[in-house]
């Protein structure tokens, strides 16, 4: 038999032996092994003592009204309003999953609001429905005016030039 203490997950043989839950065949093998293995023998001795120490801890008897109180809770639960059920659900840590859920809902809601911000009332300076700002319109108008002025300037220049050579009415 390999020494059970060579790996943590094989120590169950020693634990079972100390608890009296090992079958006869494995008990015989372990006892033979312990004759030559000081570590296992020491483990068994200490574990048996711990086992005996734990035996000392006897819990208190359950109170007489346990069942009555439970049935009362069952009846209350059956007739409780949705608000009461929610409050009950929040007890004993049942509310914990609400936090990540609430965070997820918040993120989705924030994304939704951001996404739909452009389709609401247009911001100042935006022409209704066109998506073009007033500044852009002004710029385009100014550019067109400039172009017209340049054209007129070119025409005047051309007239002056041709007047010197050939008179062309503007």
């Amino acid at each position: 038999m390999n020494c059970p203490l060579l790996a943590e997950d094989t120590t169950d043989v020693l634990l079972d032996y100390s608890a009296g839950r090992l079958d006869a065949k494995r008990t015989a093998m372990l006892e033979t092994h312990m004759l030559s293995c000081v570590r296992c023998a020491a483990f068994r001795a200490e574990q048996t003592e711990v086992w005996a120490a734990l035996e000392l801890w006897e819990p208190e008897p359950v109170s007489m009204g346990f069942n009555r109180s439970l049935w009362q809770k069952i009846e209350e639960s059956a007739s409780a309003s949705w608000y009461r059920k929610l409050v009950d659900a929040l007890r004993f840590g049942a509310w914990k999953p609400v936090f990540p859920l609430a965070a997820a809902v918040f993120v989705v809601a924030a994304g939704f609001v951001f996404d739909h911000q452009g389709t609401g009332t247009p911001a100042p300076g935006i022409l209704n429905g066109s998506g073009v700002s007033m500044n852009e319109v002004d710029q385009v108008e100014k550019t067109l005016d400039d172009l017209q002025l340049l054209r007129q300037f070119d025409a005047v220049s051309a007239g002056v030039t041709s007047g010197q050579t050939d008179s062309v009415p503007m």
Partner: protein
Amino acid sequence: MWQRVNNVVGAATSPDLDAQLMLRVRDGDEESFRVLLDKHRNSLVHFVYRMVQDQPVSEELAQEVFLRIYKTRASYEPTAKFTTWMFRIATHLALNWLRDEKNARSEARLDEDRGGDLPAREVPDRKPTVEQRMVYNARLQEIRDAIAQLPEKQRAAVLMHKYEEMEYSQIAAVLECSESAVKSLLFRAYETLRSRLAHMVTGAPMISGSGVSGAKR
């Protein structure tokens, strides 16, 4: 009615009777729920008590376990052992309580309970002396402290292994880990307990009238 209950209890000796009872509860049979309650109440309360070390809280949590079982009866499917399911709920509730209730109020109440709610263990044939009772209380406190200082999962594993006599596979199912992980948990937990408690039995017997020589604290 009692005859019916007795019939149900009589059938309770078969291995998967709990699941059968729960299926009856699912079908609306309240008596089967009473049988399950009577059968598992003590072990469940004791397990939770050893986890949280507070008697009123342990009873409240155990009631919550049964309440949840009752409320979810309609969707019950016997996919696992009934006790595995029950102890899984209990372990979750106890661990949540331990994590949530680490505040000054609960600490103060624990301190009070430590002085007041120790069981009055009696020696069968003679009344223990004051000294013997003090020795017992000191040792019991040492055991409770040693268990309480274990990491939560190790604590749950030890309590199920020692007091509920569960198989490794069932403990693994309750704690939702592998059998190998359970064995490692138990190995480490008992290793810690051996270093803290081994002197108790070697030092002196339980209530023997020999004084407090076995108690180090």
